[in-house]
């Protein structure tokens, strides 16, 4: 069974707001010095693939990313977590809309065939659009199961858990499909072992040129009109008191006054 996991290297979403600045020329964040990390839901997707491989012996995992050379970091991390192969589509990812990215990834996936599952994070931690996974499914004319959090049955027929607003569904697959992955307590990405990190540095990365795998990218269908910092909010009213008992009583009284209790 061949599983391909789509990964994206993004601006670290945990950097404080103070450290975030906008390049108005590109209508994008200034990223020159900011740390980049593997997008968090992609980490959950990767963990799901690793769990599936533990549950059945025949699983081979390929990590696929789209981006400039910097995105190789995501692939190195995937290899350090013992993914079998790593492929990057070389493209200035920031200039493309989600559909263009999906078309490029679909073209790369066709070259990587045969595979049984494509896993993607439900949304990237930068623009948070949540579009690429489902669009890849559409481009490949494959079914898509969104918000998958775990594998319910690793043997055929494969079944996965799909998170819903108030509960979940168990979904049985009928063949190759794209799954977009959401987080739950079972799919937190594990840490790599030191020896695997060393070995990963020596493994080859395959690079595909965007222009060679897709002749016509078309035009972007979406325009960013403006990108601005949000307005500064008002700070909370902090309850005062000499002791914790006093603070807590003051808080309870204010809640009563506001009609909240």
């Amino acid at each position: 069974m061949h599983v391909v996991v789509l990964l994206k290297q993004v601006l670290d979403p945990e950097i404080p707001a103070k450290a975030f600045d906008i390049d108005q020329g590109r209508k994008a964040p200034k990223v020159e010095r900011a740390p980049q990390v593997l997008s968090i839901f992609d980490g959950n997707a990767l963990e799901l693939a690793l769990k599936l491989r533990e549950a059945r012996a025949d699983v081979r995992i390929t990590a696929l990313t789209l981006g400039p050379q910097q995105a190789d970091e995501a692939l190195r991390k995937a290899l350090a977590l013992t993914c079998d192969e790593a492929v990057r589509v070389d493209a200035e990812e920031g200039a493309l809309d989600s559909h263009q990215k999906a078309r490029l990834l679909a073209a790369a996936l066709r070259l990587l065939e045969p595979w049984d599952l494509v896993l993607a994070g439900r949304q990237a931690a930068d623009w948070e659009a949540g579009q690429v996974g489902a669009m890849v499914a559409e481009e490949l004319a494959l079914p898509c199961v969104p918000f998958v959090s775990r594998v319910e049955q690793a043997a055929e027929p494969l079944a996965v858990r799909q998170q819903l607003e108030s509960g979940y569904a168990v979904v049985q697959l009928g063949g190759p499909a794209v799954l977009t992955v959401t987080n739950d307590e079972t799919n937190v990405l594990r840490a790599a072992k030191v020896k695997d990190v060393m070995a990963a540095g020596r493994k080859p990365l395959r690079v595909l040129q965007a222009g060679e795998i897709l002749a016509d990218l078309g035009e972007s269908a979406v325009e960013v009109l403006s990108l601005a910092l949000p307005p500064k909010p008002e700070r909370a009213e902090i309850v005062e008191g000499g002791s914790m008992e006093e603070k807590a009583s003051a808080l309870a009284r204010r809640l009563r006054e506001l009609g909240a209790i």
Partner: protein
Amino acid sequence: MGGILVVLTLQGGAATPAGLDLLGLAAEIAQVDGGEVTALALGEGGAGAGQGLISRGADAVLYCADPALARHPGEAGMQVLAQAEREVQPDLLLLAADSVGRDLGPRIAARLGAGLVTEATSAALHAGRVEVTRPVFGGKAIARMAATTAQAVITLRPGAGAARAADPSRTGTVRELAVQIAPAANWPTVVRREVEASSGPRLEEATAIVSGGRGVGGPEGFSLLHELAQALGGAVGASRAAVDEGWVPAALQIGQTGKAVAPDLYIAVGISGASQHMVGCARAKTLVAINRDPDALIFDAARLGLVGDYREALPALTRAIRELS
């Protein structure tokens, strides 16, 4: 601009609040623009719900209750949506940013080659096209975006607050969408659905929520949150960090990628206030933060704050509240 196709899922034979927001937004755009609003109602009860959807802003209602929608929500949903799109030929498709719209929106946009903007918190017509506002980069920035194509697809976040009051004098047509769904062998199939078990009130319905984050420090700490929740007759929620730590199940996660809740009172305990968490509780009437860091971001979003260690603050607050009631 031409017509608008609004995609809504019926629950218990009625539109959800997210669906009513979509209709309200569509009616607002159509009012300026003159286009017709068609609601596509998926799920059981469409014939009966039709007039209600018209009173909320639809000019026409197409409904489909094919049982395949429950067994194969994604693939059957796409067939139904594609058929409705062919019939209506809308310039704008509006879906909710929920488990259905986040699935179908990108797929239909890719199929149609239409520009897609997801997770809108507001949208309005400017010079003939719909401009969308939405937070990006975890709320560190606000983007305004628009499709450059003639046809656009937008998903709107629940809680956008665009719903209109019912106007029973409005009239329109209601009919069943004629569509033959032929499930293919490779379609994913829902074999079982589980509704979350919970001892107290469900998070979505709770009037008070005590929510814990990484600052709670471990699963044991959550017992203090449960005690406060019990005193308030409420429920316990959590941040993603607490879920990632394995202290609580994912069903408790509140936020952009967890549940969106709207209690009267939301008490965030040991939660730093990342915007991805805050969008899930922004509709709380009164937001309280308990955090030991006086500079924590959460005090930007909260109405009331208590600076201190929650391990002392919660028992004291639970007592104080019990005394008041």
